[in-house]
Structures are given as C-alpha cells and as structure tokens.
C-alpha cells in the first residue's frame, strides 16, 4: 500500500532468487541493519543491551535452529537446550584448552560439536515418527545435562561445574563492554540467519518441507530421507550450539548445565509456536515476544501496581497470561505472528481491493 510495486519486473532467474524483489524492501532491510549495527550501540544503555537485546538475539538464533528442525523438517524436538549446552561447553573447552585460539573459531567448534550430538540423537527419527520422537530428544535433554555435571573434565574441573566466559577478544578488539557484546551477538546472528535463509530456499530446504508434508511421497520421488533428516538435525543443532555459546559468553558470563534445562527447551518451542513455524522472520518475532512480555509486565507492575499487588501474585498472573496467549495463538493463528504479518502484507499489497 505504501510503496509502489509496478515497474519492477524480473528479467533473470537469478534476480528472482533474491530475498527482497522490490527495492523499497531492500532499502528498508538495509536501513534496519544499519540502525541495528551503527545507531543502537550509541543510543542503547547497559540495561537495554544486557537485559533485553542480547537475550532477544540469542533466543532468536535458538528459535531459528529449532525452526529448521521442527518448522521446516517436521521433526518435533524437546532437546534444544541440551544442544545449546553442548555448544556452550564445547566452545568453553576449546578456548581454555587451546591457548590464544580465536573466539569465533571457538563458536564454530561449539556448533560442530552440538551438530554431532544432534545427529546421534537424531538417528532414531528414521524409525520413529511424531510424538514418539519426543522421547529421543528428551533423552538427549536429560542425558547431556547429566554428563556435563557428572564429569568435571567438561568444566575444566571447576569445583561447582560452572563455566565462565573467556575474555571476548577478536582481532585485538575487546568486545566485553555491553555494547561490544551486543555487536558480537548481532554479527553472529545476522550471518547465521542469512545462512539459514539460503538453505531454506535451496534444494535442501525443499527436501525438508517435502519430508515434513508427506515423507512417503518424498521417498517415492527419490529424496534421500535418511540424509535429509540427519542434515536437519545437524544444521539445527549447529545453530543451537552457537546460540548456547553466545548465551554463555555474551549474555550471562557464567553458566551452569542446569541453566540449559527442560524449561529452556520449552521456552524455545514456545518461541517458534508463537513466532511461526516454517518461517525465518517468525523466530525474531517469537523471541521478541517471549523476552519482552515478562519484562514489560514486571516493569508495568513495578511502576504502577507497586503497592497494590505484590510481585509474587504478578508472577502468577504473568504465567496465566503466557499460557492463555499460547492457546489463543494456537486457536486464532496456528502459524503464529509471522503468518499475521504475511497476511497483513498480502492484504496491503492489493489495498484497496479485497482480493
């Protein structure tokens, strides 16, 4: 509605393959990136960085990882937190055991380790489908957290099994200030989101969606079901691993295996339900929702209802609101916020006509 579409036509298949076909969309996206990378570090304060923006970005990346597995490839999983834990501990061990190793390589190493664990727990998905697959990922969830607490080697024999972030140095630049940590997280998340988007629109993405929609038909037309499902687990766990490393290094600073427990997996599942299964944008909307709502409510209560309702009851109220919203979304728009945004865009595109 706002911007004019006519006059922009596709003259080659390569042009048709781009994310944004209209220049207005491209400019809006570049403006957003510019704002996020250049302006925000200057106008944001510590509270905004370490309490809102960094968790939002890390949870979006985690949501993105799980969305590739559940939203695109149709394999339900409740073990995302375990893969995050593997990523965090692997990255930590890589930093501590190999002196002077670059931070980003540590992240990638964390991702790869998580991918390997992801594939191992993804193997049962070849024989079992649907709910029963929950068991295999739940087994991963409990087993991984147990291993990380049980064997001291993983936390470098720290008395309490806790790992703490190494100094965030990349090519000599110190990223340990809140703004620096924000920029590091933003950079990693943007690159991985672009990487995920490319995969989803490529052949592999189509294979995932084929397996999700009807895997018997997919097998008949020649799609290698084994390779597709395992790749889904691998790439999804890779992203979750890096999200785990970011969670430990740029967000909390010190983290214990208990921090990646079942409620974290539920949280990431909620992100993709509310955000929208099978979409890249959905993860960011879902994560924003999951991070901002509690803070909004508690800020609201702190400022307005300080005297009236004690914080405890408000926490309960927040739990109830949360549960109600999830059910509301499932009823009203099962494909989540991303679908709402897409519907709005479709209708705006043909405004003022109705169809």
């Amino acid at each position, binding site marked *: *509605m706002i911007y*004019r*579409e006519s006059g922009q036509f596709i*003259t080659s298949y390569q042009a048709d393959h781009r994310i944004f076909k209209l220049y207005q969309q491209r400019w809006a996206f570049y403006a957003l990136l510019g704002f996020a990378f250049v302006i925000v570090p200057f106008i944001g304060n510590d509270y905004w960085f370490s309490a809102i923006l960094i968790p939002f970005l890390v949870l979006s990346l985690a949501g993105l990882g799980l969305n590739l597995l559940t939203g695109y490839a149709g394999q339900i999983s409740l073990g995302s937190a375990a893969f995050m834990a593997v990523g965090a501990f692997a990255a930590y061990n890589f930093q501590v055991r190999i002196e002077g190793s670059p931070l980003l390589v540590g992240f990638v190493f964390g991702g790869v380790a998580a991918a390997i664990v992801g594939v191992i727990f993804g193997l049962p998905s070849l024989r079992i489908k649907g709910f029963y697959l929950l068991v295999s990922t739940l087994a991963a969830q409990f087993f991984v957290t147990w291993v990380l607490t049980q064997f001291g080697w993983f936390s470098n024999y720290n008395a309490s099994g806790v790992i703490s972030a190494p100094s965030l140095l990349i090519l000599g630049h110190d990223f340990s200030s809140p703004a620096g940590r924000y920029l590091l997280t933003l950079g990693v998340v943007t690159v991985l989101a672009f990487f995920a988007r490319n995969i989803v629109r490529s052949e592999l993405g189509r294979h995932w969606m084929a397996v999700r929609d009807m895997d018997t038909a997919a097998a008949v037309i020649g799609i290698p079901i084994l390779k597709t499902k395992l790749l889904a687990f691998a790439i999804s766990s890779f992203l979750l691993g890096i999200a785990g490393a970011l969670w430990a290094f740029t967000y909390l600073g010190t983290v214990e295996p208990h921090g990646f427990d079942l409620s974290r997996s539920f949280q990431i599942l909620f992100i993709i339900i509310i955000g929208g299964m099978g979409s890249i944008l959905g993860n960011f909307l879902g994560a924003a929702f999951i991070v901002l709502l509690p803070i909004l409510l508690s800020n609201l209560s702190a400022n307005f209802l300080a005297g009236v309702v004690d914080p405890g009851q408000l926490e309960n109220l927040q739990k109830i609101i949360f549960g109600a919203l999830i059910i509301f979304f499932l009823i009203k728009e099962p494909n989540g916020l991303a679908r709402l945004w897409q519907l709005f865009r479709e209708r705006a595109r043909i405004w003022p*006509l109705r*169809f």
Partner: protein
Amino acid sequence: MANDTLPHWLIHHASIQPKRVALRHKHLGIWHEQSWKSLRSEIGQLVDILDKLGFGRGDTLVLLTHPRREALLLSLAAQWLGGIAAPLDPSLEDDHVALLLRYLNPVFVFAEGQRQVDQTLANSRQDVNVIYAEDRGLSAYPQTALQHYAELLRITPAASRAPVAEAGQSAFALYRVNGERNVQVEHFHHDELLEEGRHLVFAERLSQHEEALAARVFAASGHLRYLLSPWLTAGFTLNFPENIATRDADRRELGPTLVAGTRETYQRLESLVRERLPVPNSLTGRLVTYALRADGDVFQRFLGYWLVKRPLRDVIGFSRIRVPLLIGPALPVDSLQFFKTLGIHIRTWDKVANWRTLSTTTSRQLPSVHDTDVEADNITKAS
C-alpha cells in the same frame, strides 16, 4: 523521403540506440528483453530465410496468429523485401478463415501453432511454405511444408542487406469477410502509417522511454495497425504479457506508460475493480467512497490520493501510466468518469484518417478509402 518505410525506421533506431530494449515479452516466468540491435540482426536472418523461400517484391506473407513477437518480426522482414504482410485474425470462425485462405491462396504463411497449421494446410495449395512458432504436437506432421521458426533461425547465419521497400508501397493488407461472404481488402502504405505514428508521437509527446503494452484482446492486425508505427517512430519499448490469464499480474509488474486498448479492455478493468472494492457500508467502504468523491476539499483530495487512489492505481498497474489510449468505439461517460477520478484521463486515438476500428467485434461494411460514415463521426465528437 524515399526511405520513409517501417524497415528503414527500424535500421534508424538500431543505429542510434542499439542497446535500448525494443521488445520485451514475459515467458517461462521472467521478462525476456531484446535490444534494437539484436532485433535488426534477427530480422536480417528472417529476410534471408524468406529470400531463400523465393519471397520477393510484391509477394504477400499471410500471418494466422495472436499478437506475438515472431509475427511482428516476420511482417517487418516481408516488408524489408518489398512484400506485404497480411495478418488474419485466428479467433474468427473457421469457415471465415478457410474462405480467406482459399481466396488468398497464399504461398507463404506464418501459422502460430498446431491449430493454425491445420487450418492452413486444409485450405492452401500443395506447395505452400508454412513457418510455425509453437512446435507442440507438430512433431508427427510431414516435415516437407513446415518450417519451425526457432529451427530456421538456428541454421541461418547472420546477414543484412538494404531494405527494398519504398514509402508509397503497401506495408499491410487487411483482408475481411463482409456480411455477404465476399472478401474486402484494405491496404496501408508505409508513409501513411508512419505519418499517423508521427502524429500520435507529436500529439502525446512520446519518447523512447515509453513502455507500451497492447491489450491482448486486439487481433494481430490491431497491434500492427496501431502500435507498430508509433513504436518505430518514437523507438520506445513494446511489451507482450505471458498469456490471457496472467495479463493483469503482468501489467502490474510492468507498470506501462502507454496502453492501447478497446472499450472492452477498459470496461473489463472497471468492472473488475468495482467488484473487488470494499462493500460500501463497511468501514473501509466508507473510506474509499469518501476518498473517491470528486468534490472534496484540499485535505480530502490529499487523503484520497495517498490512501486510496495511488494504491489503487498501483494495483491495476497504472501507476506510471501517461498515455491511456482508447481505440474504437467510445467509452460510456460513467466509465470515463471512473477513470478520471483515479487521475487516468483516457484519450481516444486521435485519428488522422477516418479508418474505422478494425477490431474483431465490429465488422462493418468497408467504404472505399477517404470517405466518412456515421459511425466514424462519433469518434471525433467523443474525443
């Protein structure tokens, strides 16, 4: 001047703006573009092909096809050799087509697809040369008479020779069957057409930056008749949509600045929009009616333009429209008014000669050249 002919103008543009896009057509999901230079070289090959088939000065190339790129190029190639292009309308009833074909007994025919090839072979002499564009279903046909357009181009080396056509010569011959089943013919000479084209270019100040889109309802004859000469004089880009079904979407994608359409084209568009506008008593409905009111104050006009008119123009692909032309019978007043509220001022094709419209729907008795009749007059009054 001697070489005031269509082929000469083609050469003119190929030399002064070789890289600009001359033709664009949507096919297989994307818009394929052809520059003036490549247009000239392809026509050069076609001239060679026709020459080898024995096509010479004064011969007639019959074109049984919907508006398509290949028909346009072959017509110019025929005229290049001093011949005449005779486009027939494939959507006429079969017996009319058969009658015309038997009457013409053509040696050279361009038939679009399998159906047109069947009609041609059924009503032509034994040694007819038929060139076809779509090879679908033709693989089993006897290969002697038939030549595939793409195949011919592939085996013919590039070539170019000076055009033989002269200004006074007939470029197009439009054959029609009248009520009493006898055939009329009507010739258009190079200079007449170009004169008419120059008139439009001057009247509407057309430049080479125009993006022209001819509505599909036109017969091939309509296209050649109305858009060929302005295209060759102004040197703008001529666009063909993918097919009938996708024309609205293609128009929106293209955003043409020049549209030539008949009364039916505009009325179809108007009914399509009216049918899809929000229900009047709904909230959005009231906003749209408020916006489309003609007599509002500055604020209403501003709001109306930005909130409704501008997006609506974009949805129907008329954001960049500058020259919406109407050819043939006039639009009823309320349709004209409807488009005027959207800021689209439809102008009828300002006629130099009083030729009647030659679209499919109005086949009238054809007068001899240069006299007028009642029906033609109301065109002048309406504009």
